């Protein structure tokens, strides 16, 4: 399937709208999910994902298949999301990430037994802790982890998206997971105590 995106993009370039629809159908969900994990706001994530696709479409005439389509797409998406975060940081300064985050919270069913509600509360707390730990990573590490963990991309691609070498990416990722291990330790029972873990 390696050539498919490129073929579709060449179709878009040639004026075939159906090709754009197919690219959209394929990448819309992962791009929205990726941006959401960076900005934690659903409306903003959709807005930025649309902007990314708009930019792809507007640049179609000058498209040359010299890199993977996803590298290009995620590079645009990453830049948009990080810029939005930088610009929004002042705006959201005093609002806690929790409130501003708009985390997806399914309504609790009152008919649920108490144990189920408690279980869900624990789950939410767990998800929140993980989100805060990821958010606390330096920008580049955070982006690298999100691209590496959740997007179906090869090291080489992630490195190109972030503008670093593959070996630099791997050590960046290793450091990031090491930091996450320290922060998530209370949450993950099997994790080693600090000082005995990944990086030591």
């Amino acid at each position, binding site marked *: 399937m390696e050539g498919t995106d490129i073929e579709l993009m060449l179709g878009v370039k040639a004026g075939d709208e159906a090709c754009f629809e197919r690219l*959209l159908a394929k990448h*819309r*969900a992962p791009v*929205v*999910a990726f941006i*959401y*994990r960076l900005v934690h706001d*659903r409306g903003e*994530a*959709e807005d930025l*994902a*649309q902007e990314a*696709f*708009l*930019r792809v*479409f*507007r*640049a179609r005439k000058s498209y040359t298949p010299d890199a993977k389509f996803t590298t290009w797409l995620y590079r645009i998406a990453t830049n948009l999301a990080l810029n939005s975060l930088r610009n929004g940081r002042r705006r959201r300064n005093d609002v806690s990430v929790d409130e501003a985050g708009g*985390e*997806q919270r399914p309504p609790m069913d009152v008919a649920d037994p108490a144990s189920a509600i408690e279980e869900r509360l624990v*789950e939410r707390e*767990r*998800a929140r802790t*993980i*989100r805060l730990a*990821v958010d606390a990573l330096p920008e580049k590490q955070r982006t690298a*982890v999100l691209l*590496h*963990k*959740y997007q179906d991309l*090869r*090291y080489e691609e992630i490195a190109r998206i972030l503008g670093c070498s593959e*070996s630099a990416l*791997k*050590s960046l*990722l*290793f450091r990031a*997971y090491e930091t*996450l*291990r320290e922060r*998530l330790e209370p*949450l*993950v029972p*099997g*994790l*080693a105590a600090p000082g*005995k*873990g*990944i*990086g*030591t």
Partner: protein
Amino acid sequence: MSRSCKEIESALLAAVDGRASAGERDRVAVHVAGCATCARRLEDLRGVWTSLDALEAVEPSPAFDARLRERLEAGSRASLWPAWFPARARWAGLTLAMAAAAVALWFSVRPLRHRPAPASVENPADFAVVKNLPVLENYDLLSNFDALSALPGAQTAAPEEQQPVD
């Protein structure tokens, strides 16, 4: 931690994320069999990797495509150049567009002064000059150029505004 421990790190990562080659998997297996520290690191990494499954995501809303289409259509009307187009080039384009619009205005108004008939376009020489200005070939481009129409008095220069004067 030995040098070989440092060197095995990227293979540990690949062993956990599923991107490892067969060779990397073998190297990891051999190394952790003889190194308790890295066996532990591998387990820790696996624990972190799995715990990250709990990070939430969202699905695009059903209106995503319709909204994108709206923006695409609005964009093609309102914005002449994509956002990444260099600002300097945009100004060059603006200057060219204004000059072209002025020429268009002049050609459309001039014949009316001399010949009252609404024959401005029927003079083949005049029409050819206007038509051959590349920037004017795309009338949509000029008529929807909001930066141009925002200029005081520039409205009259937009080709779509040029109605024959009675």
